[in-house]
């Protein structure tokens, strides 16, 4: 598919997500993130690249004139096919992963290599948090298995929020901390992102 077709297909995809282009862009990013997670949760390596494969197929279908009513349902169906193909034969997608991506993946694996670096990055990122957020995430996780549920309920009561609201808030904070730590450990990835 040439660039013009691809561009037109992308525009059509955005139009399917929302009539407002800015909102459509945000929805596209959300959809992309969810598909990446779907691939990760299904145990696929190279989740980002498989998501690209998935969107390429969606663009192609759009370019071929396919009428799509529900883009989320359509994209997830294609993603499920891609998962099946990938799990059946992971090497099949090797050609879709370019050299740069392979290097990034190799760089990511450095994350596991050095505990010192990760700990220092983690501490640095935590220090960048707002104090109340830092206190919250530390308090939430600083418990043991036996008292965990009761401690978190008490914490939610103290903050006058439901336990689920607290869980979601902490999940977001952890995600932010994890990303910051990862970027700190692999600055090349962070600047490329």
């Amino acid at each position: 598919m040439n660039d013009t077709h691809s561009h037109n297909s992308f525009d059509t995809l955005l139009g399917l997500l929302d009539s407002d282009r800015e909102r459509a862009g945000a929805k596209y990013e959300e959809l992309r993130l969810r598909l990446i997670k779907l691939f990760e949760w299904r145990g696929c390596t190279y989740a980002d690249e498989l998501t690209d494969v998935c969107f390429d197929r969606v663009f192609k279908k759009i370019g071929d004139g396919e009428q799509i009513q529900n883009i989320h349902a359509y994209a997830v169906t294609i993603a499920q096919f891609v998962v099946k193909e990938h799990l059946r034969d992971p090497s099949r997608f090797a050609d879709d992963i370019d050299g740069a991506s392979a290097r990034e993946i190799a760089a990511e694996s450095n994350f596991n290599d050095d505990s010192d670096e990760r700990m220092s990055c983690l501490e640095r990122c935590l220090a960048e948090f707002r104090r109340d957020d830092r206190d919250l995430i530390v308090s939430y996780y600083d418990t043991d298995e036996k008292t965990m549920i009761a401690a978190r309920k008490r914490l939610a009561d103290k903050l006058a929020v439901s336990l689920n609201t607290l869980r979601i808030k902490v999940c977001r904070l952890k995600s932010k901390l994890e990303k910051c730590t990862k970027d700190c450990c692999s600055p090349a990835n962070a600047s490329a992102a």
Partner: protein
Amino acid sequence: MTIDETKIDSMARRFLLGEMSANERTSFEAKFVANREMFEQIAVVEDELIEDYVRGGLSSDEHANFEKHYLVSERNRERVAFARAMLNKFAELDKPLAAADDRLPLFASITAFFSANRLAFGSAFAVLLLVAGILFVNLRKESVEIGRDVEPQPTIPPQTSAPSPSPTQQIDKIDNNNKPTPSPSNSAPEKQQRSASPVLALFAGSLRDGGNMAELRLPETAAGASLQLNLENGDHKTYRLQIVDPDGRTLFSANGLRARGKRVDIFVPSSRFKNGEFIAKLSGLSDQKQLESIADYPFRVIKK
């Protein structure tokens, strides 16, 4: 759309552990890709599964399924590694809110204290009132007698450093302590604020102009310091840093560092520093996977 959290939690757990049938999974995936709340709820469950795994809280079946289905991808293994590091780190830190959990707010504590000892305090209060009354009458008598012997003086209002809070202000203060946002003022001994982390630029060749060794002045409250190791060139793919003391003992090391231009930046936690002289030894990984010594950067640490 409002979601049933408990139901989603249970389904998400089964999904992530690979315990769903193919049909159920297909339907579940279609739902969470279309629904933001549901997607976020699964992310919460994912974090909790990882935490349970790290803490050893999964049943043997769940443990086996987690390793079989979740840990197959590199990125998921990284998430587990991160969670493990994070939990270890948090266990070392102070407990800002957890410690406060068991403390009642000030007003509630006072109320609870008095209600629990109502009879004893009632009697003590009555005696106190009686004693105070007698003292007041005696003092008043004395001041009237003294007043008769001295010249009248202009009255000067008492100077106080700060106005006493009104009862309303006191209640406001207690309310503020109970606000949902965790406040550092909850705990009586205020935890010290973190200082900004200092940055120390180091150059190969070691000594600065005038022959002075580079000095890192590290505030006690800083989380750590950033070292900027300047290079002649940034040719190596990755770098390794070791900070050693004069006896050659390694205090800190980090692998896989990357240069930004002609500089390698690294943050080192305060806990790794003590007062004294050190050498930051930088090596580079060659294309042949050989470590080559790049430069030594001596510096002195002064903890303040």
